C-alpha cells in the first residue's frame, strides 16, 4: 500500500499524515481510473523527494509512474500533450519554486487549450507541487506564489490543510476536467495524522471549510497557516470568539461562505505566507467590501509574509506568519 511509511506502527492503516494521504489519493485514483498517470522528477522508484508518490511505481509500473528528464518546461509541455491525448496526467513539480520554467507552457497552453479549441481538447491535468516555507530548505524551496495561478484565467487552485482533505481534494482535482494547480503545504506534510477514509472519494472543489465557529472576528487562511491561525483562535478563546475559515480552494474562492462569516462578525483577518503586496488577502478584502461593506466594523487585517526576498534557514521564522502575529492582529482588529 502506498503512503504509509511511518515508523509509528501503532497507527491504523488509515490514520495518515498529509503526505501519505496524497500518496494514497494518487494510488486510489490510479487504481480507479487507468487513464491517470504520474510524471515528474524522481517520482518513480525513489517515491518523490517527499515520498508523496511512494508505492506508485511498484503498484503501477513505469508506464504510469514516469521519471522525467530535469525540465519543468518538458514536464508541463508533455503533460499538456498527454492530457490532449485523452490521459489524465498528474505532473509533479518538485517544489513550487521550480514551476517558473513551466509557466510559459501552463499560461499559454494549459490555461487556454479548452478555450482555443472550443472545448475539443479539455486540459484535464493536475500540477502538484509542495509549497510554502518552514522546512529549512534552500532558496526556491519555500515559495508561496499561489497568486500567480489564481490571477491567471483558466486554472483552478487548491490547497489542502489536512490529510483527509488532501486525499479528497486531490481526487476531485484529478477528476475535474480543467487544469488544477494543487499546492501541498510541505510544512505540515508530516505534522499530524488524521483518519482518512479508504478508497477513492472526493472533497468538492470550491468549498471553504469552517474550522472553528465564532462570532467576533473571521480569520481566513489556507494551507500550513491554518494551524497557527487555529492556535491563535484557541489562545483568544473566552476573550475574542474567532471563526476560522480554511479556504481550501483558492480559485474559485467560496465567496458565499466567506461573505456570510463576515456578515456575522464584521471583522476579519487574512493570513497567508505569500508576500503582502499583491497577495490574495487583497482579493479577499476587495470581495468583502464589495459584498458586505455595510457590515464592516474594522479594517481587515493582513498577516502575511513580508515583501522581501525569502530569507533562508533560521531566518525564515521571521518571514512566516506565526501564532503570535495572527493573535495580535486579531486583537487589533477586534479592538478597533
Amino acid at each position, binding site marked *: 500500500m502506498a503512503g504509509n511509511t511511518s515508523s509509528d506502527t501503532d497507527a491504523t492503516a488509515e490514520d495518515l499524515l498529509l503526505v501519505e494521504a496524497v500518496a494514497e489519493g494518487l494510488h486510489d485514483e490510479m487504481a480507479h481510473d487507468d487513464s491517470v498517470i504520474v510524471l515528474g522528477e524522481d517520482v518513480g522508484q525513489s517515491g518523490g523527494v517527499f515520498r508523496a508518490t511512494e508505492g506508485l511505481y511498484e503498484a503501477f509500473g513505469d508506464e504510469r509512474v514516469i521519471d522525467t528528464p530535469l525540465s519543468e518546461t518538458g514536464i508541463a509541455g508533455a503533460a499538456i500533450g498527454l492530457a*490532449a491525448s485523452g490521459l489524465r496526467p498528474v505532473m509533479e513539480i518538485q517544489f513550487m519554486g521550480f514551476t517558473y520554467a513551466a509557466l510559459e507552457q501552463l499560461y*499559454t497552453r494549459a490555461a487556454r487549450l479548452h478555450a482555443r479549441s*472550443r472545448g475539443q481538447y479539455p486540459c484535464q491535468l493536475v500540477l502538484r507541487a509542495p509549497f510554502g516555507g518552514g522546512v529549512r530548505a534552500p532558496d526556491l524551496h519555500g515559495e508561496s506564489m499561489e497568486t500567480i495561478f489564481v490571477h491567471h484565467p*483558466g486554472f483552478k487552485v487548491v490547497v489542502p490543510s489536512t490529510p483527509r482533505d488532501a486525499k479528497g481534494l486531490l481526487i476531485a482535482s484529478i477528476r475535474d476536467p480543467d487544469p488544477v494547480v494543487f499546492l501541498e503545504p510541505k510544512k505540515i506534510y508530516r505534522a499530524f495524522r488524521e483518519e482518512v477514509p479508504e478508497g477513492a472519494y472526493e472533497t468538492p472543489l*470550491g468549498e471553504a471549510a469552517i474550522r472553528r465557529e465564532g462570532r467576533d472576528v473571521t480569520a481566513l487562511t489556507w494551507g500550513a497557516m491554518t494551524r497557527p491561525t487555529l492556535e491563535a483562535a484557541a489562545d483568544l478563546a473566552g476573550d475574542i470568539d474567532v471563526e476560522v475559515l480554511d479556504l481550501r480552494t483558492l480559485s474559485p474562492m467560496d465567496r458565499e461562505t466567506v461573505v456570510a462569516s463576515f456578515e456575522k462578525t464584521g471583522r476579519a483577518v487574512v493570513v497567508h505566507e505569500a508576500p503582502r503586496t499583491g497577495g490574495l488577502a487583497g482579493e479577499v478584502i476587495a470581495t468583502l467590501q464589495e459584498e458586505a461593506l455595510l457590515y464592516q466594523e474594522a479594517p481587515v487585517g493582513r498577516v502575511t509574509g513580508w515583501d522581501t526576498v525569502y530569507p533562508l534557514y533560521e531566518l525564515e521564522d521571521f518571514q512566516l506568519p506565526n501564532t503570535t502575529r495572527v493573535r495580535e492582529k486579531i486583537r487589533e482588529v477586534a479592538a478597533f
Partner: protein
Amino acid sequence: MVRFPSAVDRCEQLLAPDGSYDEAAVEALGLGRETLRRMYESMVGARALDERGATLQRQGEFHFWMGCRGLEAAHVGPAAALTERDWLNTEWRQYGAHIQRGRPLVDILLFWLRGYETWETEDVDDMPAHERRLPHIVAVGTQVPQTVGLMWGRNLQGYDEVGLVGVGDGGASKGDFHAGLNFAGVFDVPVVFLVLNNQWAISTPVERQTAAETYADRAAGYGFEGILVDGNDPLATYRATRRAVERARETGEPTLVEALTYRRSAHSSSDDDARYREETDLEPWRDRDPVDRFEAFLADRGLWDPEYGEAVRERAGERAREAADRALEIAEQQSPEEVFDEVFANPPAYIEEQREELLALYGEHGEEAFRW
C-alpha cells in the same frame, strides 16, 4: 544569401532547381499520378490562399496575415508523408500542410479572424486527417513538447500513430525545442520534428539565430538521426519525412528533418522586410521556386501542361476567394457572450456571473459603448 553553403551541399535533393531530377530516386518513391498532382494542387492552393489573405489584410478585412510564398514544398511534402491517422501540429504559416491533409480553407482562415478553432468530430477515433491536430499555437516553440506528450499518450493508449511537428529556425532556439527533442529521445516517442529553416525569424537571419552548421546536427545531441533536405524540393521533403515516419512507427524512434528553404515574403503583414534585407537577396530563391520546379518535373513526367496549371491556379484562386468570403461572414456573427465560452469544461460560478454583468452592460449601453 544562403546561410549554410556547406549545408546546401549536404542537402538531400531529388529535383534540381531547374526541374531536372534523379530518375531512379523518383521511381523508388512509387508515387502515383494522383498523389503527385494532389501535392502540386496543395502547393498551388497554399499560394492562392496566401495571396487572398494578404490582399484582404491590405484591404483591412483581416487584422493580420502571414505569408508562405516559397515555402510550399517544405510544407506540403512532409504532410503528404503522413497517413490519415497520423497527427500534424504546425507553425502559423504551414497552410499547404493543412490543405494537403484536407482541411477546409475556411477553417484555416477562421483562426486568423477569431483566434480559436473548432472541430467537427468529437471522438478522436473518427477524426479525419485534417482534424488530427492541436489548435494553432502562438508562443513560438511550445508546440514541440506538447506534440511529444500527445504522441506519447496516443502510444501509451496503444495507437499506432505518428506525429509531425513543425518548428521554425527561430523556434528551434527555445527551451521547448530542447525539452521536446530530449523527451522524445528518452521515451521513444514517435514524432518527426520538422525544422522549417526559412532562414529568418522576423528580421533575425539564421546566422544570428545559431552558429550551428545545420539544425540537423542537433539531433545527435538527443540520440537520434537528423536529416537535412532541400526544402524547396517537394519530393525531397516527402521522402525524408516518409522515412522518418516509417521509422517512428516501427521503432518509436524520433527523427529531426531540417527543410532548408527561404522566407520570401515579409514575416507578416506587420513587418517591413525592406528594413533588414535587400530585394536582391530574394532573387536566387525565386530561381529555386518550389512550384516552378515541381511544374517542370511534372511536365517532364507528362503530368503537367500550361492548361492544367492554369486550371489548377484558377480553381485555387476561386476556392480561396469563396473561403475568405465565408470566413468573414462567419466571423461577423461573433457576439459578446462568447467572451466566456469554453474557458472551462466545468466553469465556476464566476464565469456566469461575469457574463451576466457584461451582457447587462451591453444591453443597457449598446454596442457603441464598447467600441473604441
